[in-house]
């Protein structure tokens, strides 16, 4: 085992061998002092990390070398023997700084004499450097929170690898929620088919209460996905003052159009043609008229997105996930239907990748799929708005002073009031309503 010059203090970079207390060939007990080292700050006897025999002195008395440089080689007792013979030695070798000595040599692994060992005198630089890396400046914390970035995953470019504010901003520019998406993905999403076991008559024992099978009177532990959802919801509500508005849309003709197309579409494309792609197509056109809704608030200003990346909220059994239809402005209604269909498939299979989840600029939530006629959605963090399509219901409405039965759908919008005011919000909804009501059979192909 190669013994290196210990670091005897935080700012100490070199040490001098003052005196060898052992000669080559002498036996050394573990923790026994075998060399005296002096620095400009302290003199210290260095205890041996292992029991063995001093084979070779590399650094002579009076010689000064950098900390970490080899000074001697000790042949460990029983090091050639199989593992059980030296449990204590290997434990020491892998455990930083024990309490047994003020200067505890640690972590050399070398039967081969390779000198990658280090000494952590007084628990000095290595430990404290790692500690510093976990301390983040107020700016880093704030930026990370604002951009939903897990700082622990970032590589710091500052002094000693510190994560700087610029690192966070760079990560944010790479993808608004890359790390968060990755975290969500790491959380196993239970297959939908797991649900039927809930019919079991015997309640699960205490401690096994889960989100899928919550047991009354127990604590359901938070999954990683649930924690992230909770965090992001609170953040969104805390940072963005939500305002809410709604219009009702007559989708009678659109509903008929869709009915005419859906069988052919399913047959040709393999994906069902729901109202969602029609809706998204109209939303994108309306966003183009009101680009401030396709935007993100920051203290520096409002970042107006160039792309139209529409997130679609997909509720799974135990969590909610919002994959993104990229460049939705380049897709036809049919193209959106296929893109959405693929994302929904992947979400249910738990196969969404970071690319599927990043970069959303606006979100559509098909709350009507669950029968809701009115909802107040929370904005997906870092966007300016979220719009819902509620259930289509037949209602009596007044048209030209006559009562007619029409297929009606409510469309609800939550908006970040820092970004836009009601005027723009209602201009957007009004435009969206006109577009949806103008969609009818016999017009363009989907």
């Amino acid at each position: 085992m190669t013994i290196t010059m210990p670091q005897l203090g935080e700012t100490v970079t070199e040490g001098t061998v003052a005196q060898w207390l052992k000669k080559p060939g002498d036996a050394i007990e573990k923790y026994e002092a075998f060399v005296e080292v002096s620095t400009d700050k302290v003199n210290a006897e260095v205890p041996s990390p292992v029991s063995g025999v001093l084979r070779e002195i590399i650094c002579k008395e009076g010689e000064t070398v950098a900390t970490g440089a080899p000074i001697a080689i000790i042949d460990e007792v029983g090091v050639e023997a199989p593992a059980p013979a030296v449990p204590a030695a290997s434990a020491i070798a892998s455990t930083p700084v024990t309490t047994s000595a003020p200067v505890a040599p640690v972590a050399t692994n070398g039967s081969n004499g390779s000198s990658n060992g280090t000494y952590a005198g007084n628990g000095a630089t290595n430990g404290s450097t790692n500690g510093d890396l976990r301390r983040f400046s107020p700016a880093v914390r704030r930026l990370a929170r604002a951009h939903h970035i897990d700082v622990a995953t970032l590589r710091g470019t500052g002094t000693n690898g510190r994560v700087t504010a610029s690192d966070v901003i760079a990560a944010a520019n790479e993808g608004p929620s890359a790390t968060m998406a990755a975290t969500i993905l790491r959380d196993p999403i239970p297959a939908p088919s797991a649900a039927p076991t809930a019919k079991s008559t015997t309640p699960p024992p205490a401690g096994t209460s889960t989100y899928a099978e919550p047991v009354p009177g127990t604590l359901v532990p938070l999954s990683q996905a649930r924690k992230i959802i909770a965090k992001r919801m609170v953040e969104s509500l805390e940072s963005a003052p939500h305002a809410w508005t709604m219009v009702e849309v007559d989708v009678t003709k659109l509903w008929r159009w869709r009915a005419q197309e859906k069988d052919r579409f399913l047959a040709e494309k393999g994906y069902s043609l729901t109202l969602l792609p029609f809706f998204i197509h109209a939303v994108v056109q309306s966003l183009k008229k009101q680009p401030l809704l396709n935007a993100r608030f920051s203290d520096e200003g409002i970042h107006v997105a160039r792309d139209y990346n529409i997130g679609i909220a997909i509720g799974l059994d135990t969590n909610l996930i919002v994959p993104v239809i990229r460049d939705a402005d380049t897709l036809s209604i049919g193209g959106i239907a296929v893109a959405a269909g693929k994302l929904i498939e992947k979400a249910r299979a738990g196969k969404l990748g970071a690319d599927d989840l990043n970069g959303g600029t606006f979100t559509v939530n098909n709350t009507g799929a669950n029968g809701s006629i009115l909802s107040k959605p929370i904005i997906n963090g870092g966007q300016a708005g979220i719009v819902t399509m509620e259930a289509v219901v037949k209602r009596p409405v007044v048209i030209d002073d006559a009562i007619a039965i029409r297929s009606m759908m409510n469309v609800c919008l939550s908006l970040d009031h820092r970004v836009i005011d009601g005027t723009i919000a209602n201009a957007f909804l009004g435009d969206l309503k006109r577009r949806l009501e103008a969609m009818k059979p016999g017009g363009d192909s989907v």
Partner: protein
Amino acid sequence: MAVASPSTVMNNVEAVRHTLYEALKNDERTLVLGEDVGARGNVFLITKGFIEEFGAERVIDTPLAEASIVGVAIGMAMEGLRPIAEIQFADFIYPAFNQIVGEAAKTRYRSNGDYTCPLVIRTPYGGGVRGALSHSVSIEALFYHVPGLKIVAPSFPSDIKGLLNAAIDDPDPVLFLEHKKTYRLVKGEVPTGHYTIPIGLADVKHPGDSLTVVSYGLYVHQAIEAAQRLATEGLSVEVIDLRSIRPMDRTTILASVRKTHKLLIVHEDNKFGGIGAEISAMVAEEALFELDAPIRRLCGPDVPAMGYALPLEEEFMISTDEMAETMREMVRY
């Protein structure tokens, strides 16, 4: 400020002289008083020839009695004149402390607004000129604690003119600090014609992205030079010239810190309880969550005075190299 109008290149002494001359010429309420401002024409020749042109009633040679200089000027100001008092060196201002702090600064408040004190007190300050104990001191921190007193310390010729005009116009007392080492060292364009620069407005003298440096006086020039050096290394530093010490331009400082996330304050005056302490407290209060590094201050040491011996003076003064190195450390932090 007349940007498009013609300008003349002047050094800082000439800028002060030019502005005082214009004031005496254009406003008969103005007058200058102080030690050696008359026959001698000021020790830096700022008022040379003034007494011949404007007469001994408007260019007054006073006894060596600073309390009287300021006290008399306060009386003049309260009765409608616009005195511009000079303390020959800032090191001599202490006898006038009571007049400035106890009287001038409180005039408006004490009289419930019936009286104001439109007084300017000019004084050269600062070291680096082998001025030793009695010709090197920085006094701003002694006075900036006092509400009712404005303090400006411009160090570019055009800023000197604009702020000296603003100080003369100001209805309340203004302490006008001139760094004596910049007097003939610093030259620059000065627009002709009358203009003012609002008191309380800092100026970004060198824009940058990665570090905010706030300074004033001689060190602004060194900080700019250091920032220019760092720019050649690809490191971007913003240098703010405070220009006015009180009121302090919080807006400009905070906007810069919000951009760069790092703050360095450089001043010649002692660190303890200095202007930098106030700036860093203000930023900590207003923008803690913008900070990506500990705030740092490069300041004069806490010693009673600047020594005469060159090594002692050099030890006191901060070199451009030292500024550049600290900036590097902070940008890379």
